[in-house]
């Protein structure tokens, strides 16, 4: 008997957020950016909170970040994650702009090696055949 498959919680993009998931499919981390004042905005919004412009577009970022905080998820809150725990949820700060925070996982790093400020690089991890997510791993250039 084949094990019943648990469907992952699939993102439901809107026209405003489609660029992000298109980027993931292309192996790029894309973040919404104001085309007038050039600030990045995450999560995506219909107007720039810095200059109120409505002219916004997804742009590829470097994928470099620093670790701001983390938590070891040991309790699943969705059936798909029951066999995925423990995993390291992390708030990372993308290098493109101070305060540009992104919520993801840190992978390939033992818990005891996690440090605030450590350098990270984006990596694309396939959680299920239909779900790939941008995650972060310690940079080889550990600064």
């Amino acid at each position, binding site marked *: 008997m084949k094990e019943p498959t648990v469907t*992952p*919680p699939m993102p*439901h993009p809107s026209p405003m957020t489609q660029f992000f998931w298109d980027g993931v499919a292309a192996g790029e981390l894309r973040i919404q950016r104001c085309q007038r004042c050039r600030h990045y905005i995450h999560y995506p919004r219909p107007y720039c909170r810095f200059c109120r412009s409505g002219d916004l577009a997804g742009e590829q970022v470097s994928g470099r970040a620093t670790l701001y*905080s983390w938590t070891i998820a040991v309790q699943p*809150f969705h059936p798909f994650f029951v066999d995925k725990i423990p995993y390291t949820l992390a708030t990372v700060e993308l290098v493109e702009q101070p305060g540009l925070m*992104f919520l993801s996982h840190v992978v390939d790093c033992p818990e005891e090696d996690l440090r605030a400020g450590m350098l990270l690089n984006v990596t694309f991890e396939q959680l299920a055949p239909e779900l790939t*997510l941008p995650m972060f791993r310690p940079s080889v250039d550990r600064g």
Partner: protein
Amino acid sequence: MAKRNRVAIAGVGYSTIGRKTGLTIEDLVAQATQAALDDGGMTVGDIDGISTLGSEALADGWMLGIEPLNWFSTSGASPAFVHPALMSIAAVASGMCHTALALRIIRQQPSGAELAAGDTSGNPMTAGLAATSGDRQFLTPFGAGSATQWAGLLTQRHMAQYGTTEEQFGHHAITQRHHASLNEDAFFRDPLTMEDYLAARFVSKPLRILDCDYPCDSGSAVIFTTEERARDFAKPPVFVDACSLSAIRDLNFEILEDMAVTSPAHCARELWSRTDLRPADVDTAHLYDGFSVITFQWLEALGFCGPGEAGPFVEEGNTRLGGRLPVNTDGGACNVGRRHGANFCIEATRQLRGECGERQVEGAEVSVFSNAFGPFSGAVLLTKD
């Protein structure tokens, strides 16, 4: 416009509170309201305004037979009980109504285990956590978005930035449990040891189950009125000296730019700017403890200790009954259950009335209560007559 009224608390009360009681929202509204009316020696005829979080103000007013309503407000996403409380305070202060009932009504939310098993209870909380549209598309597919997970992130940041230790959070849990041991209304009254705390399971490491409030069904009610009317009711009035409501961003905890200093810092600055009282004047503090780190942030924000010093401040015993600043003398929501902020207002009121029995802080004249943190928060400074 009428001149600004001085606002007082005239009645406080709770519904039956318990785990999966089977009580409906209407039951919780009716019971809590009656308890607050009885406490104040009041009748529904004394009330002309309603604010609520968790029920619907018009439906409540009609069901309770309060007619006409001069003023009503149903809170949406907001920082717990302090939001309907502040709406009521503002309405009475401005003269839009003379006596306002502030409610916080909660049905117990599904547990992590129920959610992991694919909970199909139809509880709106379940649907919210499972959503993958809007901002949730950046959380749910990552296995993120549970409140305990952002609490883990904010707890970890406090530890990383300030050197706060697990044991210091443990001291907080132990202190609150000691207070709960003196409160017949608490679920948990047995003493807690550091061994117990450190052995408690992690929910989202470094957050332990003992750092979390206790889910339950609860209805809480507080009646705010004018000074003049308050003097005619049964209980000595407790006065609102100053209050503050603040938000520093939209409702996304996981991507806060600064997780160590959040909206309570702004909220507290505003609060102190609106009063002649100072932190040293406060006799009891009732600081939201949905998660332990929230109480720590409020201790720092309100100036009871320096930035990042909440850990040592708690460890030194300052927040314990008999200490410099008794905090959460009812035992906090970790022990009395999730009344979502209302218990802090009600316990502060009872301390200022001198009704707290074994856990009474002698001579208490000034108390502060606060709710929520992160994106949004609120605080109220209360005084004895």
